[in-house]
């Protein structure tokens, strides 16, 4: 996540400016800013600051390796997703939390507020009216945070991608770590996505900072 953020800070401004801006300039030069133009500012991608942990400066290098291992193992085995159900995928996400496919055994406890959440599972279609709320919620999450884009709608608009009020993919506004395919993805697919995220946390433990 750490490097992704470093990488994320440089390109998003430059490149991602193109698609959302191009769609906007097409609007005729009306006197009053058209609704679509007002919306463009709201859909700007999130500015991601990489966090700096104190123990990185204090602990000598050789001690950081075991510390990273322990911290990453702790983080990966208690991922608290923020209950963020948008549409049909949310029902499948709830089915995954519930007793039949039980996510509690992975230490994954759904949590309502972003303040104590580690993962944001974007389950459903992100519309352009909802995008500012998604960005704000992502920013309000404490820093080692990850995003799972669940379902075709969150990945690139899914069956609704041709409608101009739908954001074609949540990665246009926030950086995404794991994409779970499916419409809606089966509970097993979501579990596979979460396990992939856990492996990713273990791999990138040196970069979380």
């Amino acid at each position, binding site marked *: 996540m*750490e*490097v*992704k953020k*470093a*990488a*994320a800070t440089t*390109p*998003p401004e430059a*490149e*991602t400016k193109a*698609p959302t801006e191009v*769609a906007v300039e097409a609007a005729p030069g*009306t006197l009053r800013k*058209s*609704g*679509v133009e*007002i*919306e463009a500012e709201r859909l700007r991608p999130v500015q991601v600051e990489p966090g700096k942990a104190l123990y990185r400066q204090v602990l000598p290098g050789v001690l950081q390796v075991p510390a990273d291992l322990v911290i990453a193992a702790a983080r990966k085995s208690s991922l608290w997703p923020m209950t963020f159900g948008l549409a049909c995928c949310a029902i499948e996400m709830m089915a995954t939390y519930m007793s039949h496919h039980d996510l509690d055994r992975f230490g994954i406890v759904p949590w309502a507020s972003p303040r104590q959440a580690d993962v944001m599972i974007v389950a459903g279609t992100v519309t*352009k*009216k909802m995008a500012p709320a998604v960005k704000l919620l992502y920013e309000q999450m404490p820093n080692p945070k990850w995003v799972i884009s669940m379902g075709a709608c969150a990945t*690139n*608009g899914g069956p609704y*991608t*041709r*409608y*101009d*009020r*739908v954001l*074609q*993919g949540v*990665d*246009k506004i926030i*950086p*995404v*770590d*794991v*994409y779970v395919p499916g419409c809606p993805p089966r509970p097993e697919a979501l579990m596979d996505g979460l396990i*992939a995220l856990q492996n*990713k946390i273990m*791999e*990138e433990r*040196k*970069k979380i*900072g």
Partner: protein
Amino acid sequence: MSPEELQEAPVVPPPAGSVADLFVAVLPDVEFQATQGALDVILTVDRGDVVRILRAARDDPRLDFKYLRCLSGVDHMEAGLEVVYHLYSYTHKHNVTIKTRLPQDDPSVPSVTSIWKGANWHEREAAEMFGIFFEGHPNLVPLLLPEDMTDHHPLRKDSPLAEIEEWQAERAGLAAGETGEAEE
């Protein structure tokens, strides 16, 4: 579906003793064209006496259409916009569809929120999706679109579908699982 291929529905007179005759009995002075739709009778009315006929439909004991089922807008391109009211009566158990045709340049029709409170959101949605202006509506503000987007009518036939933009992650090198360049 090029516009020439569009065919209009054939006008089939409704069977005798149907709701249309009730309307003639209740409101002899209002003239309307009646056709028999797939399920229920369809009356096309001039927009001037829409409120009058709907108020009578709800209050007159013989008609007693207390339940406004659905209110929708239809865009017929050059032939103008259309507002369709579907009514149902719990006591007499009969249905009717009342339609009014609005010209493309001045799409306004009096609001029926004074008759049924249930028409409020239907009218707001038809207003923002088609640009129909409902006079006398208490709060004609976009409902499904953001409040400050009053000039964008997505359901109009002339407003295009969005193009498919490139998938964000591949281009910005942030595809899933890729850990990026800068080593810590």
